């Protein structure tokens, strides 16, 4: 698929200071939402290292996992969780705007689309938790 776009060199880009996102609450929240991806990616890299360690023998793996109970790691995971929740909520909100669902001639209200997303998220989380509990 090819996209046709204007020549980038002919577009106008206003010059903004690097701190533009500190000017308004909405800009700040926008930047926090963007920052959530950094915490999610950091968690995934750590999770990948943990998965790698699981193949290195039980004692070595237990020693590796022991360090995650330290206050520093607990705080990191709590902060990462808050950013992940921010991503979840804002992603569902934007999905409710983007997904304009129709039933017959009626447009499904955004609040209902959001509620369905939240319901599916809770069900998926319970299923994953259940797998970890029974195993």
């Amino acid at each position, binding site marked *: 698929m090819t996209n*046709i776009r*204007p020549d980038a060199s002919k577009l106008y880009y206003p010059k*903004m200071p690097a701190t533009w996102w500190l000017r308004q609450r909405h800009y700040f929240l926008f930047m926090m939402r963007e920052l959530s991806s950094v915490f999610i990616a950091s968690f995934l890299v750590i999770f990948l290292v943990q998965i790698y360690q699981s193949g290195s023998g039980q004692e070595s793996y237990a020693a590796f996992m022991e360090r995650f109970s330290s206050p520093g790691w607990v705080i990191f*995971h709590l902060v990462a969780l808050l950013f992940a929740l921010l991503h979840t909520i804002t*992603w569902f909100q934007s999905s409710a705007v983007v997904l304009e669902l129709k039933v017959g001639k009626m447009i499904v209200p955004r609040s209902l689309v959001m509620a369905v997303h939240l319901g599916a998220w809770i069900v998926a989380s319970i299923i994953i938790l259940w*797998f970890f509990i029974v195993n």
Partner: protein
Amino acid sequence: MSERTTNEPFWWGLFSAGGVVASFLIPIHIIITGLAVPMGWLTDSSRLYDLWWVKCYLFVLITLPLYHWAHRFYFTLKDMGLKVVEKPLAFLCYGSAVLGTFVTAWILLGL
């Protein structure tokens, strides 16, 4: 107006898929492996990682949000004034996600 082709839809597609995966699955995984297991509320279930279908799940869970990160991080840094180095920045961000994909596959296949 001149014409130019762009590969942005491809990366945007991966960004979007990663956003969906991250929104539905990441919070519970942080709760389980980052908090519940270290605090002793749950026993560790690392033997789950040996199952082939769990490996497929983990591959999707880990790799797609990396592309989500790459896309957001790239555009955030551009918005913060790094537009002059956008090409190396794009290479660094998306390249890291591609590298992460290969490393994830290598680790999961090696278990």
